[in-house]
C-alpha cells in the first residue's frame, strides 16, 4: 500500500518536472512548479532523510537529549516536535528566501527552481540536519565552539571573523532592500515608522502591565499594525502629510543607521523582544496566506523558462548562470546562517533524537518551499514589467519612455503607460527601477492575493507585503547589530581589554557605533552606486552566506569522519565541493573579471579612465574606486577564510581516518554511548 502511495507521488513529481522541462509555450501554470517541488520534497524526506537519520547520524531515541539531561525549565526544555518545528522554522526563515529567487528570475524561472529544489535536498537540508544532530550530541554547542573543538582554535577564530563580516554585509544588503522599497513611498514609510511605537507599547505592556502575556500583546500589536497599514494609505493621499513622509533614499539610510544604533543599546524587553514576536507571527501568517493564495488562484507564469541573460549580460545583476544563479539564491537552497540556528536554541529543546529529522531536514524543506513561492510570485509578472522594476535606472534611460525602449531592446514588450497604471494600482508614484526584490515580490503577492481573495484591495496587499518584509528586516537590523556589537567587544577585547566589558556604557557605545558605521558604510555605498547597489552587494552577501555553509559542511564532515562513518562522508563532501566550486569561481570573477559590470578591479579601472577623460567628477569617481577596492578586498578575504577552514579541516580528516583516537570517538556524532 505504502509502495503504491510513494509510486503515485513519484509519478506526480515526475509529471511536474516533465511539464516544466518540455513546455515550450508562452506561459505555464504555477501549479506545475508547485507540484514538482512538493513531490520532490516528499520523496526526499521519505527516503534520503531516512537514510541520513538511520545510517549516517544513527539517531537513537534511547539516548537522552540535552533537553532532558540538562533540563532547567528555561532554555533546556524538552519540546513537542511540532512546536519545535514551528519555532525552528520561524527562526530560519527571513527575507533571504523571498529576495534571492526574485533576483535570480532574470535567468528565467527554470534554473533558479532546479537549484532551489535540488540544492535543498542534497545541500541545505543535509547541512541543517547534520549540524543539528551533531550539536544535540554535544550538549547544544554552537557552530563556532564545534569548529574550535573538532578542528582547532585557529579555525574557531576564523569562523568568528567570517560570521562578523557576513553579519555586516547581511545587515547592509537587507537595509538597502528597505531603502529601495521605501524611497519616495510615503505609505510604506508611514507604516514602517508606526511599527516602532507599536513595538514599544507591546514591550511596556509585557513588562509593566501583564508580564509574559506575549500572545495578547502580539494580538494587540497585529491589530494596530493593520490599522497603521490602512492609515498609511490616507497619509499618502493627504496633500499636507504625504510630502512629509516622502523621503529620499539617503534620508532613509541615515534614519536606519540611527535606528540600528539606538535599538541595539536599548534594553531588549522594550523594543527587540516585542518586535521579534510581532515579526514571527506576521511572518508565519503571511507565508501561510501566500501558500493559500497560490493554491486558490493557480496563477499563470509569464516569465520564460530561460532568458537570454544566461550569457551574463543581465541588467539585474552581472555574471553568467554559473556561478551566479547559485550565489544569488542562497537561502532556500543552502544557507550557512541556518547552521547557527541549528546549533543554537533548537538542539537544547529536542525531546527525542529522532525529532532531528523532521526539524533539521523538514523545516529546511519548508523554507525551500517559501523560495519556490517567491519564484512563482516573480514569474507571474510580465517579463517587461519584471525588468523595468529590477533594472537600475541608469540602464532604463531614466524615464518611463526610456524604459519602454530599453525593455524592447532586451527583447520583451512593455506598453507605454503600463508601468504608470501598475504603480497607480498599488498606490505608488513610480515602480521603475525598484530594485532589491521586495517591490517585485510585493507586486506578485498583491496579484496572487487579490486573485484569490478579490481584486478591490490590490494597493493594500502591496503595502502589506512591503510592511511584512520591512518589519522583519528591521528586526534583523536590531538583532544583528546587537550580535555584531558583542562580537566586536569580544574580538576587540584581545586588542584593548576595556572593550571586552559588555556592561560598560562606553564599551557598548563604541562597539555599537563601530558595527553601525561598518554596515552603514556599505549601505550608503549601495544607495549612491549608479548601478543601484544590489548589483554589487547581493553577490557579496551570497558569497558570504555560502562561505559560512562551506564552513558548516566542513564541520559536518569532520563530525561524520570522527564517528567512523567515512563511507558516508559523501553526503556532506558532495555539496561542499559544489559550494567551493561556486564560491571560488564567483569570488574570482567578482574581483578579477575584465568586464567592468562584473569585476570590481575592472570597474575601478573603468572609472579611472572616465575621470581622465573628464566624464566623471574626480571626487565622486575617487569614492567609487575606493568602494570597488574595499569590495574586492572583502571578496578576497572571504575566499581566503573559506579555503583556510577547508584545508584545516582536511588535515583533521586525514589524521582521523588514519588513526581515530578514543577521545575523538567518544565525542563523535554517532559514537556509541560510553
Amino acid at each position, binding site marked *: 500500500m505504502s509502495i503504491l502511495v510513494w509510486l503515485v507521488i513519484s509519478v506526480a513529481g515526475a509529471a511536474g518536472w516533465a511539464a516544466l522541462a518540455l513546455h515550450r509555450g508562452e506561459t505555464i501554470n504555477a501549479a506545475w512548479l508547485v507540484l514538482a517541488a512538493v513531490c520532490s520534497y516528499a520523496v526526499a524526506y521519505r527516503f534520503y532523510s531516512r537514510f541520513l537519520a538511520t545510517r549516517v547520524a544513527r539517531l537513537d531515541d534511547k539516548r537522552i537529549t540535552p533537553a532532558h539531561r540538562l533540563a532547567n525549565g528555561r532554555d533546556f526544555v524538552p519540546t513537542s516536535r511540532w512546536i519545535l518545528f514551528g*519555532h525552528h522554522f520561524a527562526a530560519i526563515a527571513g527575507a533571504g528566501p523571498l529576495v534571492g529567487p526574485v533576483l535570480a528570475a532574470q535567468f528565467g524561472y527554470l534554473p533558479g527552481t532546479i537549484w532551489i529544489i535540488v540544492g535543498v535536498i542534497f545541500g541545505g537540508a543535509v547541512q541543517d540536519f547534520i549540524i543539528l544532530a551533531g550539536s544535540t550530541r554535544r550538549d547544544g554547542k554552537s557552530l563556532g565552539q564545534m569548529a574550535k573543538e573538532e578542528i582547532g582554535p585557529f579555525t574557531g577564530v576564523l569562523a568568528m571573523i567570517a560570521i562578523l563580516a557576513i553579519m555586516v554585509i547581511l545587515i547592509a544588503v537587507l537595509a538597502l532592500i528597505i531603502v529601495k522599497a521605501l524611497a519616495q513611498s510615503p505609505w510604506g514609510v508611514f507604516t514602517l515608522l508606526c511599527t516602532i511605537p507599536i513595538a514599544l507599547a507591546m514591550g511596556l505592556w509585557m513588562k509593566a502591565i501583564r508580564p509574559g502575556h506575549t500572545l495578547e500583546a502580539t494580538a494587540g500589536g497585529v491589530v494596530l499594525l493593520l490599522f497603521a497599514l490602512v492609515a498609511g494609505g490616507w497619509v499618502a493621499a493627504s496633500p499636507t502629510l504625504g510630502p512629509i513622509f516622502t523621503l529620499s533614499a539617503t534620508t532613509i539610510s541615515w534614519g536606519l543607521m540611527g535606528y540600528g544604533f539606538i535599538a541595539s543599546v536599548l534594553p531588549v524587553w522594550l523594543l527587540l523582544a516585542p518586535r521579534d514576536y510581532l515579526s514571527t507571527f506576521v511572518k508565519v501568517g503571511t507565508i501561510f496566506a501566500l501558500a493559500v493564495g497560490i493554491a486558490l488562484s493557480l496563477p499563470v507564469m509569464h516569465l520564460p523558462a530561460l532568458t537570454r541573460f544566461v550569457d551574463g549580460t543581465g541588467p539585474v545583476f552581472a555574471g553568467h548562470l554559473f556561478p551566479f544563479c547559485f550565489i544569488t539564491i*542562497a537561502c532556500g537552497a543552502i*544557507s550557512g546562517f541556518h547552521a547557527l540556528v541549528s546549533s543554537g536554541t533548537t538542539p537544547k529543546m529536542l525531546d527525542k533524537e529522532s525529532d532531528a529529522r523532521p526539524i533539521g531536514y523538514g523545516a529546511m524543506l519548508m523554507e525551500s518551499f517559501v523560495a519556490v513561492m517567491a519564484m512563482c510570485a516573480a514569474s507571474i509578472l510580465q517579463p517587461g514589467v519584471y525588468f523595468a522594476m529590477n533594472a537600475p535606472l541608469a540602464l532604463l534611460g531614466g524615464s518611463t519612455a526610456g524604459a519602454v525602449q530599453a525593455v524592447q531592446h532586451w527583447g520583451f514588450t512593455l506598453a507605454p503607460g503600463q508601468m504608470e497604471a501598475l504603480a497607480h494600482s498599488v498606490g505608488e508614484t513610480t515602480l521603475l527601477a525598484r530594485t532589491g526584490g521586495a517591490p517585485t515580490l510585493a507586486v506578485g503577492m498583491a496579484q496572487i492575493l487579490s486573485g484569490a481573495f478579490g481584486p478591490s484591495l490590490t494597493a493594500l496587499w502591496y503595502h502589506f507585503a512591503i510592511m511584512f518584509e520591512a518589519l522583519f528586516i528591521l528586526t534583523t537590523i536590531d538583532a544583528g547589530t546587537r550580535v555584531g556589537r558583542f562580537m566586536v567587544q569580544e574580538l576587540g577585547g584581545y586588542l584593548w581589554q576595556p572593550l571586552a566589558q559588555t556592561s560598560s556604557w562606553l564599551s557598548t557605545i563604541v562597539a555599537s557605533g563601530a558595527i553601525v558605521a561598518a554596515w552603514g558604510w556599505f549601505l550608503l555605498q549601495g544607495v549612491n552606486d549608479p548601478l543601484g547597489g544590489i548589483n554589487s552587494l547581493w553577490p557579496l552577501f551570497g558569497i558570504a552566506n555560502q562561505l559560512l555553509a562551506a564552513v558548516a559542511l566542513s564541520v559536518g564532515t569532520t563530525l561524520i569522519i570522527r564517528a567512523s562513518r567515512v563511507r558516508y562522508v559523501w553526503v556532506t563532501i558532495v555539496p561542499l565541493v559544489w559550494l567551493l566550486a561556486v564560491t571560488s569561481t564567483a569570488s574570482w570573477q567578482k574581483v578579477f573579471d575584465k568586464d567592468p559590470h562584473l569585476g570590481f578591479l575592472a570597474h575601478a579601472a573603468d572609472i579611472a579612465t572616465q575621470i581622465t577623460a573628464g566624464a566623471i567628477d574626480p571626487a565622486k569617481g575617487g569614492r567609487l574606486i575606493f568602494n570597488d577596492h574595499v569590495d574586492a578586498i572583502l571578496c578576497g578575504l572571504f575566499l581566503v577564510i573559506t579555503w583556510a577552514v577547508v584545508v584545516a579541516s582536511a588535515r583533521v580528516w586525514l589524521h582521523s581516518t588514519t588513526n581515530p583516537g578514543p577521545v575523538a570517538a567518544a565525542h563523535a556524532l554517532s559514537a556509541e554511548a560510553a
Partner: protein
Amino acid sequence: MTLPLRLKAVVRVCRQIAGMPDYQAYVAHLAAAHPERPLPTEREFYEEFVRSKYAGGASRCC
C-alpha cells in the same frame, strides 16, 4: 477538555513557537528537581528569561 482549557493550550503552543518558555513548566521543573530553591514570580521569571535570551545576542537568519 473544556473550552477555556483548550484555549490555554493553544496559547501555550503559540508562545512556545515564538520562543517564550512556559511558566507552569518551570514551576513543575523546580518542584521536581530543586524543591529547596525559591520560586520566582511569573514577572521575575519572564524578565530574567528575556534578559538571558538576548544576552549573547540572538542568532537570527537572513
